[in-house]
Every structure is written in C-alpha cells, then in structure tokens.
C-alpha cells in the first residue's frame, strides 16, 4: 500500500543569499516558515513543487518537507528542518536572530 500522504511545505535555498526559504500560498518566498502554505493534498503539493522548480532565478533545490499545522502557521516535524528555520546552535547567526 502506498504510504499515506502527510502535510508538506515547499522549501528551498535562495539563489543569491543561499538561506532557507518557504513558498507561500501567494507564490512568494518567505524566510519565515510560519508564512508558508501548508499542503495537505498530494496532487496540490506536487503542483506547488513544479511551480517552485520553475522559479530557478530565485531559488535552488526546492523540495517538499514534512510539516504540521501550528498555532502561528506550519511547523517542521524533523529536527533538520527545525534547524533550517533557526540557524546554527553554536552562534546567534541566521534566522534565530534575523526574523
């Protein structure tokens, strides 16, 4: 049996800055994951990923990452994605201080 689809967000790194960004429902790339569009239908998720892939002038390597609905918007489910929303743990650099 195919695995049940779990909600996703589209994420990538920005071409110029290289930082992590997420795709919003309006088709904008945001550095704040909570503004991302939470995709709970597989067909729609694939479509959004295709849209993202066509935006090669803005981002690099878009992919679908697992997420869940949180109080302020989508939240990551895996620690790797959590780190991408935050930055490194050894310095106060990246999104933990920039957002």
């Amino acid at each position, binding site marked *: 049996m195919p695995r049940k689809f779990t909600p996703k967000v589209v994420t990538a*790194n920005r*071409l*110029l*800055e*290289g*930082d*992590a960004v997420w795709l919003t429902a309006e088709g904008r790339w945001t550095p704040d994951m909570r503004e991302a569009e939470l995709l709970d239908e597989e067909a729609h998720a694939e479509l959004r990923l295709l849209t993202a892939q066509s935006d*090669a*002038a803005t981002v*690099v*390597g878009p992919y679908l990452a697992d997420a869940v609905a949180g109080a302020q918007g989508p939240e990551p*489910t*895996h*620690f*790797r994605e959590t*780190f*991408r929303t935050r*930055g*490194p*743990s*050894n*310095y106060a*650099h*990246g*999104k933990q201080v920039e957002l």
Partner: protein
Amino acid sequence: MYHYNDFDRAFVQERVNQFRGQVERRIDGSLTEDEFRPLRLMNGLYLQLHAYMLRVAIPYGTLNSDQMRTLALLAEKWDRGYGHFTTRQNIQYNWPALRDVPEMLQALADVGLHAIQTSGNTIRNVTADHFAGAAADEIADPRPVAELLRQWSTDHPEFQFLPRKFKIAVTGAAHDRAVIQAHDIGIQIVKNAHGEIGYKLLVGGGLGRTPMIGKVIEEFVSQDDLLPYCEAIVAAYNLLGRRDNKYKARIKITVFENGLEAFRDAVNEQFARTKPAFSGVDVKLFEEIRAQFAPPAWRNAPLKAYDDAYAADALFRSWADTNLTAHRAEGYAIVSVSLKKHGETPGDATAEQMRVLADLADLYGHNELRISHEQNVILPHVHKSDLPKLHAKLREHGLATANIGLVSDIIACPGMDYCALATARSIPVAQQIALRFEELKLEHDVGPLKIKISGCINACGHHHVGHIGILGLDRAGVENYQVTLGGSGDETASIGERAGPGFSAEEIVPAVERLVLGYLDLRSSPDETFLAAYRRLGPAPFKSVLYPEQEAKRERADAA
C-alpha cells in the same frame, strides 16, 4: 615556503575570471542550476543548510602571515567574522553571498591561494604533517613532495572526473601525524639501506561508510619514480574504479574488490606507460621546489627568559608542557595554538584571532603558520626565549588554552549546524564534553586522549580513528550518537570498534564521562594512555562502564 611563479598566478587568475563570468551568467539566467552546480563545486562553493559555504584550500596546511591576514579579511568583509579550519587543513566560510564569491576568490588569488579542487571527484588538497620542516623526528620535509603533487594534480586533464574524490597525505616522519593510513594514497618518506631518500606508498585507506586502513603497494619508490608512480596509481584507479555506485567508487573499494596484487599489477602496467612520458622535468621541478622550502636562518639566543617564565608562572608552565613539541633546531619549539577553548567551536577562529596569529608569526615565527588536521594552528618555528611574550599575547585573545592532545582537543565536523549532508549535530557535543571536563579539572590527569566526532557516516570528523569516536545519526527522527572505541590515526592506525547501542543527545556527554572515568580506574599506571589501556584490556571493561545497566543486569543474572 613555496611562492607562486608567473604560471601559477596566471592560472589561478584565469580561474577567478572564469568563475566571475559563470556567477554572472547564473544570476542573469543564462546558466541553469544544473549547469552551474558543477562549476561552483569545482571552485569550492557548496550550498549548505543556511547559506553557501566556500572551502578554501590551504596547501599541506602551510600559510604565511599575509595569507593568514587575507583569510581574516574574507571572514570579516564577506562572512560573519570567523572561519572554520577543517580536518583536511582547509578553511571554510559558512555565510558567503553568491555575488561576493568572485571577489573573495580574487582576494585569495592575490596572495597565492584558491578554492580549486576543494570539491568534486578530483585530487583534493594534498595534506601533510603539520610539523613539517620543524619536527625533530622527520627524515625530510614532506612539503616539497606535497607541493609537487599539488602542481601535478591541479587541473590534471586525466583526473578531473575520477570515479570519486581522491585524497593524498604525506608524512616525513615515522611517527605519523598526517593520518596517511586513512588516505587514498598515503606517502611516507623513508630511507633505504643505502641511505637514499625515497617513498613508501600506501593505497586504499579511507574512512566514511566503509573504513579501511591503507595497504602498502610499494615499500620504496625513488624520487625519479614518485610522480610517474602516483600517476600510474590514479590512472589504474580511474579505469578500474566503479562508477555504478558512488558508495563503492573510492579506491579503497577498488583495491578491496580486485585485491592488492591485481591492483598493483594494474598500476605497474600503467607505470610502464607513465614512466617514459616523464622526461625528468618532474625531478628538476622537485629540486626547484625543495630549494624554496629551505629552513629559515635559526637564531642563537639565551634561554633565560623561557627558563624564568617556566619556573615562575604556573599557567605558562602548563601551556608549555602541553602545547609545545620538540623542534629540530637548538633552542626552538613548535607551538600548537589550540582552537579548542572549552565551550568554543572546534577549529573556529575569529578574524581578529587570525590577525593576531599572523602578527605573532611575523614577530616570532619566521613568518610561517600551519593548520593541523586536528583543527589547530601551529607556529612551527619559535625560539624558546620568545615563548613568554608569545604566550602572553595568545592569552589576551583566547588562544592560550593548554589542552593539545587532551580530552577537550576534540575534532568535530560542522555537523548539522551547517552541513547539508549531516544526520546530526557534532559541534554542541564537542562543546559540552569540553566544558564538562573543564569543570571536572581532570584532563591533565587523563592525559593523551583523542575524541573525534562526525555528524554523519562520511566521517569528516575522523571518528573511526578517534580513541573515542562519536558518530551522530538520525534514528527515527531523533539525534543519536554511536560510540566507537580504540581507533587510532597514527602509525599504529586502527579502526575503532562500535561499543554498542547509541546514546541520545542528553546521554552522550555522561557516557563519555563514564568512559573516561572508567579508564582512570582501569589503567595500569598514569603512564598508560587510554588507547594503550584499551589495547591491553580489550573492549569488555570499557563496555561495562559505558553501559552500567547492562552490566548490572549481567551481574544479577550471574548471582541468580
């Protein structure tokens, strides 16, 4: 030290110009990412979790002070004020913006540095003993060989698309500080029965998911044959190496699957072709390079300042006992500057620290610096009378930690704090272990102990050859740390054995503490190191202290 000639300068400048054009074409859309990616990787530019990362080669870990100042400039002007020195004697910048990278490469080119072949399936930066040219125990300086190999391998047309990356390390001493047995080719300078200098060559060592110790392919290769023989090895690998599966593409698998004998035959077949093609220009070139590595003019001076400080100042004495190594020249010492201050990130230096080190190299160090694969900075030639002044300056800048070779002198890869390949974090584990042992005030009693941490199976943190190795993995969506014991990266190299089930992020530091405290009880005397005790006793008593619940269960079962 080697200085770029006109050819080197023109070549590196041309690559900077090319890359500038490539970046422009990617930004204006004329290059797709698929087209651009291999081009940026050829120039050391990766895309990581939070940003781009630029990996700059430091050939055989040797820098002059102007080059160090340029590394500081890059950190300050185009990054976030620091750089990360790696286990391959490189430096990585974690935050460059794509548009700035050509300028960074230009600044590097201006002082004879580049990022070429710091990625991709090519021959990477050739590494060497970080005490090269200074160590009391070396037969010859390995750096002229490493420089010859650098010139030969850079842009070598036959070796730009090898089955997989290729790493070479050179040592000039029998005591191996360059981990040559864990390299694709390991080179040891040796003397034969006639007193002639030549090279013992090893192949097929490597860490990563299939760790292997290198095997001796030739006991003695003469100077005349060195380059043709290395070319024959890489050519044989280029043909025989697997391209169907990237996990089986390194030369260690080629040698393992074909057998050393068959691989040696293939190399000899290639050698019959390569040897006549080398006209002897390589030997002439080697002599020219070697002349550039002539030792500096040693100074004769009284040692009173050193002796007085050693007698009077406990901090200085502790640092001198821990961070100095015997130098070949009378009155000199090799200074290892620790980039492992307790709680800091292993291998990181701020721009200011880099400048201070450059200034100290100018003042007291014959203008030379080294980066060790253990992620520290070396001032290879310091007269002992200058050490008190040097130490005082290091202290002002957080660079006087007296922990070289001790528990807190931990190798750690960037791990999942930065690296896109990582499966768990390494840096916080290293920071916490160091802080814990600082708290216990035990590390000088514990003595030599190498802890090495990798954040994934690719083993950039050399965990397989750590006396205690730690491998960070993702177990069902949670960071988990596996412990290996008894590894070693020196001339007695061995691959550490997995101790048992992994530990959570909360459990790993107490687990290491149990191990180290357990060792103190197990050792036969304070002179028996952790590794020696492990080799004498085997894993069982170490596992007992690492897994006390299992041990308790076993005891209960025995009693029943």
